[in-house]
C-alpha cells in the first residue's frame, strides 16, 4: 500500500509514467520486451541519463547548466581529432577529455559563485563560446571517427550472455555513474549541496564554503557531459550536431523527475527516471507511427502535464500537512511525552492521509 501511495505522490509520478510508457511500447512492439532489445533501449538512454545526473546536482543547488550540450559536441570532436585511428592514444585522450570537462565546470562554477553572475547567463555564454571555439579549431568537422577501441565504450558490450544476450558497456557505465551519484547524494557533500539549494545562508553560517560546493556541482555536471560524450562518440560517431540541445533535454528530464527548479528538493533516481521517460516517449511516438512532425507537440503536452500534476498535488499536500504537526506542544513546563527520535511510532490519529514522507535514500 505504501509503495502505491509513493507512486501516486509527485516524487513517484515519474515512475508511474515510465511504467505506462514501457507497457505501451511492449504492446505496440512485443519484441521490445526481449532482454537484448531492452538492453539496446538502455544503451540509447545512457548518454541522456548521465547528463541528467550531472544536471541534477546543479539544479538541486538552485542553478542551471546550459553548456552541457556544447560540451558534448566539443568533446566528441576532440575525441575524433586527437584519437584518430591510433588505438594507443585512446586512454590519454580520455584523460585529457575528463580534465577538459572538469576545467569547463570549474570556470562555470567560479564565474557563478565569485563573480555572482546568474548561472543561466554564465552557462549560456559558455555554450556559445565552447561550440564556437571547437568548431573554429577543427574547421567544423573532425578528421574522422576515432579508433574502434575508443568507440567500443559507447558501442560495444559483452555478447551472448546467458539471459540477456548483449550487455552494452554504456549500460554498465550508466549503472556505475548512477551508483556513484546516489553514493554522492548520501555523502556529506551531497547533503550539504541540497541544503545549500534549500537555504544558502544557513549553509554558509554552518561553516560550509558555499562557492566551492556549488563549483563542484558544476564540475560534476561537466564531467557527466564528458562521459556522455564518450558514449555518444561510440554510439553515433563524430559529427558537429551530436549533443545539440541535450542540455534542454537534461533539464526537462530532471524536472520530470520531480526535482524543483530553484533547488533544495529532488531525488537523483527520479531524475534518471525522467531521462528514461523521455526516451520511452520517443520510442512510443516512433513505433506508433505518430507523424514525425507531431512528436514535439505531444512531448510538450506531456512535459507540462507531468510537471503541473506534481506542482498542484505537491502544493495541495503541503497545505494540509502542517495541521498534523507533531504532537509535542506540551502546554506548561510538564515533561513533553518522550518519543524517542528512533522509535517514531506512527500516530494514525495524527497523520490521517499519512503520505509516507520517508526519503527514498
Amino acid at each position, binding site marked *: 500500500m505504501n509503495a502505491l501511495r509513493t507512486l501516486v505522490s509527485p516524487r513517484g509520478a515519474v515512475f508511474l509514467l515510465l511504467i*505506462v*510508457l514501457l507497457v*505501451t511500447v511492449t*504492446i*505496440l*512492439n512485443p*519484441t*521490445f520486451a526481449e532482454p537484448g*532489445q531492452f538492453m*539496446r533501449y538502455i544503451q*540509447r538512454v545512457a*548518454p541522456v541519463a548521465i547528463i541528467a545526473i550531472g544536471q541534477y546536482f546543479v539544479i538541486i543547488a538552485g542553478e542551471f547548466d546550459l553548456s552541457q550540450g556544447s560540451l558534448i559536441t566539443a568533446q566528441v570532436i576532440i575525441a*575524433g581529432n586527437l584519437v584518430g585511428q591510433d588505438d594507443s592514444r585512446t586512454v590519454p585522450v580520455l584523460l585529457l577529455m575528463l580534465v577538459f570537462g572538469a576545467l569547463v565546470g570549474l570556470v562555470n562554477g567560479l564565474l557563478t559563485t565569485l563573480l555572482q553572475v546568474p548561472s543561466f547567463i554564465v552557462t549560456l555564454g559558455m555554450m556559445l563560446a565552447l561550440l564556437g571555439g571547437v568548431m*573554429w579549431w*577543427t*574547421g*567544423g*568537422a*573532425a*578528421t*574522422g*571517427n576515432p579508433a574502434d577501441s575508443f568507440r567500443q565504450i559507447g*558501442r560495444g558490450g559483452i555478447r551472448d550472455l546467458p539471459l540477456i544476450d548483449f550487455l552494452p558497456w554504456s549500460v554498465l557505465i550508466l549503472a556505475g555513474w548512477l551508483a556513484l551519484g546516489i553514493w554522492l547524494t548520501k555523502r556529506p557533500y551531497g547533503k550539504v549541496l541540497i541544503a545549500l539549494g534549500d537555504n544558502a545562508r544557513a549553509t554558509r553560517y554552518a561553516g560550509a564554503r558555499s562557492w566551492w560546493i556549488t563549483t563542484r556541482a558544476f564540475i560534476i555536471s561537466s564531467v557527466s557531459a564528458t562521459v556522455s560524450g564518450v558514449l*555518444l562518440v561510440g*554510439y*553515433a*560517431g*563524430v*559529427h*558537429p*550536431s*551530436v549533443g*545539440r540541445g541535450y542540455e534542454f533535454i537534461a533539464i526537462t528530464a530532471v524536472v520530470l523527475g520531480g526535482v524543483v527548479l530553484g533547488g533544495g528538493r529532488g531525488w537523483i533516481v527520479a531524475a534518471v527516471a525522467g531521462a528514461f521517460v523521455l526516451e520511452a516517449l*520517443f*520510442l*512510443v511516438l*516512433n*513505433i*506508433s*507511427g*505518430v*507523424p*514525425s*512532425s*507531431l512528436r514535439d*507537440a*505531444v512531448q510538450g*503536452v*506531456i512535459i*507540462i*502535464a507531468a510537471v*503541473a500534476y506534481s506542482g*498542484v498535488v505537491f502544493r*495541495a499536500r503541503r497545505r494540509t500537512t502542517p495541521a498534523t504537526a507533531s504532537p509535542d506542544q506540551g502546554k506548561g513546563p510538564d515533561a513533553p511525552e518522550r518519543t524517542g527520535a528512533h522509535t517514531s511510532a506512527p500516530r494514525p490519529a495524527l497523520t490521517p492521509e499519512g503520505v509516507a514522507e520517508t526519503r527514498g535514500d
Partner: protein
Amino acid sequence: MRRSMTIATAAVALIGVFALAGCTTDPTVTPPAPSDSDPGPSQPGEAPANEWFDQALFDTQDAQRDVAPEGPADQPYLQYINAEMVDTAEYASDGAKKACFANASISNPWRQTGWITMNQQLKVLQESGAISEMETRDAQDSDDTQIADIDYFIEEGGCDVFIISPNSTAAMTPAVERACETGKPVIVFDRGVNTDCPVTFIHPIGGFAWGIDTAEFLIERLSPGDKVVGLRILPGVDVLEQRWAAAEKLFAEAGIDAVDYFTGADPAEIKSIISDELAKGEVKGIWMDAGDGAVAAIEAFEDAGLDYPVMTGEDEMSFLRKWKDTGLTGLAPVYSNFQWRTPLLAAQKIFAGEEIPKEWVLPQSPITAEELDAYLTANEGMPDGHYAKFGGENLPGFPEVWQQRQIP
C-alpha cells in the same frame, strides 16, 4: 472548492492551447490506442500530394542526367549542360575587380569544404589580377541577416560583382533583386531565387536528379514490398525537399514501402530511428537526402547483427570509407561540391566579356561502386567531413589546406 477551480482553469488553458494551435490532431495524453503495428503497406510519408513535386522540373532534370556536359572534361566546375549562353559584353572591363560574397553559412561539412575550395580559387584569381579582393559576410543560417548583408554590400561594399549563396529561395528574392538594380553583375549559386535578374545561376542538375538516381538505384536492387527508410536532415529546404519528392514518387510507383523521418542530421537520432525500424521489421534499403550520419545508419545494422541494406549516402569521405570497409551495395550521389569554384571563375569571364550560361547547370553524377576506389585514393588523408568531388585538386595548397581544414 479552490483546488477543483484550479484544475478546471488548467483544463481550459490546455484545451485553449490545442484549439488555438488549430492543429488537426487531438494529441491524446494517454498513449495512443495500440493500432495494429505490423508493417503493412503504410501510406507513404505524410501529405499525399507533396507540395514540392514539380513534374516539369522533374522531367528536365531527369533528361539532363544523360546529357554529356560541354566544356573541358578535366574541369567539371566549368562544364555546363543545355546552357543558353548570355552575352556579358556590357560588363567587360579590365583591372582587378572587387567581389562581395553573401554566404548563407558554413555550418555543415559540405559548405565548409566548399568554402575552403572557394578561398583557394580566390588566391589563384588574385595572382592573375582578375579579382582584387573578396569581402564575405556570413549570415549564419539566418535569412534576415543575409538580407541585411546584401543591403550592406549594396550601400557600403563598393562591390564590382555580387556573389550570393542564398539561405532560402523565396526569402532572398527581394534582396537579390535590389542587388541587380545596382547594375553590377550578380552571380547566384547553390540555392536558387525566384527571379532571373542575376547574370547567371550556377547549380548542379538538381534535387530531382538526385532523387531519381538514388530511387532508381534502390528500386533496381529491391523488390516491391521491400521496406526502405528515408532519412531526411530537415524540412523546408527546397534542394532537400525536391530530392525526397522525386524519390517518394518513384518508390510509390515501384511499390516500395518507403517511410521517412526527420533526423536533424544527428547521428545519434539516426541510429535510434534505424534501430526502432529494425526492431519493427526487416529494412531492405536506406535512402538519405544528405550524407550526414550515414555511418551511424550502417552501424545500426551492425549492432543489430543484420546484414547490410542497399544504401544511398553522399560523396562524404566518411560514407565512402565505410562503404569500402563494409562492401555493402551502395551509391554515393553527389551535389557537386566543386560548384564553389565556379562563381569566381564566372566573374572573371564576365569582366572578360565572355559568354556564360544564363542557367549554369553543372554536371552531377553519383559515385558508383566502380569509381569508389579512385575517389578514395584521390582523397587520401582527407578528414571524414571532406567531400570527394570538391574539385580543388589543381588549386594551390592541395592537399594540406583541405587536410588541416583551415577555415579562413
